[in-house]
C-alpha cells in the first residue's frame, strides 16, 4: 500500500466505510433489477459528491479540493471492491481532466463547479462501435459559420443515457478536435444498450448536430494530444478500480478456501490450491505496484505517464480477469450461479478491460512507447 498522508488515510477509510455501508454488491444487483437506463444510483452519487469525491480533481476556485489522483485512486479502489457502478471516473476524472487540460476560462467556470458538486455528469463519447478507436475517430465535424456540425455514431457511451454533457472527439479536415455537446442537443439521439452489467451504456447518434463556437474544447489538431492525456488519467483510475475488484475477488475466495469443506477437509488445506492462491497474491501485488506508481506519477506530473498508464491498465486487466475466473473455479458450482457474486466480478472484468482500451491495446501501446 502506498505511503499516505493524513488526508489520504481519512479519505480512504471514509470510502471504505461508506462502500461497505451504502454500496455493497447488492447495490449493483438492485440497479440491474430496476432495469433502468441511468446505470447508476443518483442518490448514491449525490452522497459521493457530498463527501467531496467528485471534486477531488477540481481546483479549489471551482469548488473542488484538488487533492490529486492518488487520493481519487484510493477512493475508486474502495468502490471497486463492491463493483459500484457510478460515473466517478468518467465524469470526475476524464471530463474534469479534459476541461482542466483544454478548457478556456469560460468553459471551466461554466462546467467545473457543476461537475465538482455532482449536479452535472459529463462523459467522454469515445468508442465507435467495436473497439477503442486509437487515433481513428470517424465521427465528423464540419465548420458551419462560426460553429460546427457533428455527424456520426458513438457507442457504447457509458452513462450515456444519464449524462448532461458529452466530450466528443471528432475528425475535422485539420485533425481531431474535442467538442462539448449538451445531452439534449437537437439532432442527438440516444438509445440504451443492455449490457452484461449496468453502466447506462448508450448509442449516441449525431445527425448534423449544430454546436456553437463555445463548444470547441480543443481545436483541430490539438484534440488528440489532449485526449491522450485525458485517457492516461482515466486508464490509471480505472486500473485502480479494477485493482479494488481484484482484491475483493481474492479475499472472498480466500475466505471461502478457509471455510469450505470437501473430502472431510477445509479446501484451503489442499496444497495445489494454496500455491494457486500464493501465485494470485503475487499478481495482485505486482498490479498494486503498477497502479500506485502510475497514480503517483500523475500527481508528480512525471514524464513517463503514458508508459505507466498502459502498464497499469494492462496488468489490471489481466489480473482482474484471472482473479475473477479463479473466483468462479475455486467456488465450484455455487460460483456459476447468478445468486453468487462471482459472476459479477467476471463480467466487470470484461467491461472494465474494454474501457479506455483493453489489455491487448495497452500492451501494444506500451511496446511502441518502449521501442519494441
Amino acid at each position: 500500500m502506498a505511503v499516505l498522508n493524513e488526508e489520504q488515510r481519512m479519505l480512504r477509510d471514509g470510502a471504505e466505510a461508506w462502500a461497505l455501508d451504502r454500496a455493497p454488491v447488492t447495490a449493483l444487483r438492485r440497479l440491474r433489477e430496476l432495469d433502468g437506463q441511468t446505470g447508476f444510483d443518483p442518490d448514491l452519487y449525490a452522497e459521493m459528491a457530498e463527501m467531496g469525491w467528485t471534486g477531488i480533481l477540481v481546483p479549489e476556485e471551482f469548488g473542488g479540493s484538488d487533492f490529486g489522483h492518488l487520493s481519487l485512486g484510493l477512493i475508486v479502489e474502495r468502490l471497486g471492491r463492491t463493483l459500484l457502478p457510478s460515473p466517478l471516473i468518467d465524469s470526475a476524472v476524464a471530463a474534469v481532466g479534459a476541461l482542466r487540460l483544454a478548457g478556456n476560462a469560460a468553459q471551466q467556470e461554466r462546467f467545473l463547479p457543476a461537475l465538482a458538486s455532482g449536479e452535472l455528469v459529463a462523459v467522454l463519447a469515445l468508442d465507435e462501435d467495436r473497439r477503442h478507436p486509437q487515433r481513428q475517430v470517424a465521427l465528423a465535424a464540419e465548420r458551419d459559420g462560426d460553429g460546427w456540425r457533428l455527424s456520426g455514431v458513438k457507442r457504447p457511451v457509458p452513462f450515456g443515457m444519464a449524462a448532461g454533457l458529452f466530450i466528443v472527439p471528432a475528425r475535422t479536415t485539420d485533425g481531431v478536435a474535442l467538442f462539448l455537446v449538451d445531452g439534449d442537443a437537437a439532432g442527438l439521439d440516444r438509445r440504451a444498450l443492455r449490457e452484461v452489467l449496468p453502466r447506462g451504456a448508450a448509442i449516441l447518434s449525431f445527425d448534423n448536430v449544430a454546436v456553437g463556437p463555445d463548444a470547441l474544447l480543443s481545436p483541430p489538431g490539438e484534440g488528440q494530444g489532449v485526449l491522450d492525456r485525458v485517457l492516461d488519467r482515466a486508464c490509471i483510475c480505472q486500473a485502480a478500480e479494477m485493482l479494488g475488484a481484484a482484491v475483493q475477488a481474492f479475499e472472498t475466495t480466500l475466505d471461502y478456501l478457509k471455510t469450505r469443506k470437501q473430502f472431510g477437509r477445509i479446501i484451503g488445506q489442499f496444497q495445489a490450491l494454496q500455491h494457486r492462491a500464493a501465485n494470485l497474491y503475487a499478481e495482485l501485488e505486482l498490479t498494486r505496484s503498477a497502479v500506485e506508481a502510475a497514480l503517483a506519477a500523475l500527481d508528480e506530473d512525471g514524464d513517463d505517464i503514458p508508459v505507466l498508464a498502459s502498464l497499469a491498465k494492462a496488468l489490471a486487466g489481466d489480473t482482474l480477469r484471472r482473479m475473477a475466473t479463479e473466483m468462479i473455479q475455486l467456488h465450484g458450482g455455487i460460483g456459476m450461479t447468478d445468486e453468487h457474486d462471482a459472476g459479477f466480478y467476471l463480467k466487470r472484468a470484461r467491461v472494465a478491460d474494454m474501457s479506455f482500451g483493453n489489455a491487448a491495446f495497452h500492451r501494444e501501446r506500451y511496446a511502441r512507447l518502449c521501442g519494441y
Partner: protein
Amino acid sequence: MADDVEQGFRAEVAEWLKANFPASLAYKNPQPYHNDGALADADADFQLWLRRIADKGWGAVTWAPEYGGAGLTRAHEAVINQEMARIGAFNPNRSYGMMMLGPTLLEYADDEQKLRFLPGIAKGTVRWCQGFSEPGAGSDLASLQTKCIDQGDHWLVNGQKIWTSGANHAHWCFCLVRTDTSRKQAGISFLLIDMSSPGVEARPITLISGTTHFAEVFLTDVQVPKENIVGGVNQGWAVAKRLLQFERDSLAGNRAEAPSLAPLAKRYIGEDADGRIADPDLRRRLILNSMRSRAYSQTFQRAAREAKAGTGTSPALSAVKNLGSDVSQERGELIVEILGNRGLGWEGGGFEPDELEATRAWLHSKAYSIYGGSFEIQNNITAKRVLNLPDYQ
C-alpha cells in the same frame, strides 16, 4: 463391413437423410450447450426430426431393436454420422439419458429394467436428469446425504439435490441415495425416480449466463417402487462411477474440432498491411489457441484409433477433459475479446443475435472445468491413477 456393403449402406443413408432431414435445421443444431430440451421443444421441425429418427431406430443406432435401437454396428453408426455431417444434419437424440444413463443401464440394469427404460431413451420420448450432487457435497460426491429408507413395499426418499441439469424439463431422474448411513461409498444406491411423484419439487437455478439449465430438487417423503434400484442395494457407487465415465467421454467428445477464429477476427478487427489480424497481441493468443485446439482434436482422434485397435496406452480421459475445458474456455474468452464492445451485450437491440449468444457462451464455458468432475478432481485422478503418485496420507 466390406467396402461394397458400406458403399451400399452409405447411399441408402444419404437418400433417407435427403428425404427426411428438415432443411430448416441444416447446420443449426439447437442443442449447443443448453441441452435441457427447452429450446428443442419449441421447434416443430426439431420434433419432427426426432420422431423420424426414433422411428428409424437411429436415436440409438447400435442398441438392439427391443431397446428402441436399430441393432446396427459401430461401423454403421460412423457412416450415418459422416453422412449427417456432410449435409449439416445431426443426431437429435443427444440427451443425458442417451449419453450417460443408457450405456450404464446396458451394463448394470436387469432385463426388466432395460426393457422398461431403454426404449424411451432411444426414442427421445423420456427425458432424464441427473440427481448426484448435493448442497455441501460438491466434488466430494460420496458424502451425499439423501436418505432412502426401506418401507417394505417401497423406498421412502428424503433429501435435496443440486445442479440437476434440466430437472425442470425432465420426466425421470437417476439419483444417488443413501441406503446405509453406516458406510460411505458402500452405503449408496442408484435409484430411478419419476419426477411426477408426489414430494418431488424442482426449483430452477439461474446461472451467470442467465440460463436456468440447472435446478435444485427437493425430495420430501417421495415413495419409489422397490424395483427402481439399478445394480443392487448399496451397490450404487460402481454404477455411478461408470456413468461418470460416460459423462466424461461425452463432455470431452463434445468439444473436439472448432472452426478457425481467423475470419471472425479479421471481420471485427481488420487486417494489417501484411494481411495479418490487425491486433498483434490478440493474434498471438488466437494462434496459440488454434494450435492447442488442433492438437486436442488430434488427441481425440488418436484415442479413438487406439481404443479401436485395443493397443498402447491411450491418453487418460481425466487429462483430456482438462485440456478440452482449457482450450474451449480460452476460446470463449478470445471470442468476446474479438467482439470487443459487441461482446458486452446481454440482450435487446444494438447487438447481433450471434454476439449475444457468444457472450452467454463465454460465461457458460466457465462451467466446463467445474461440472463432470472439476479441473482439480481430474488432476487428482491423473496424478493418482495415471501417474501412480502416492496419496498424501
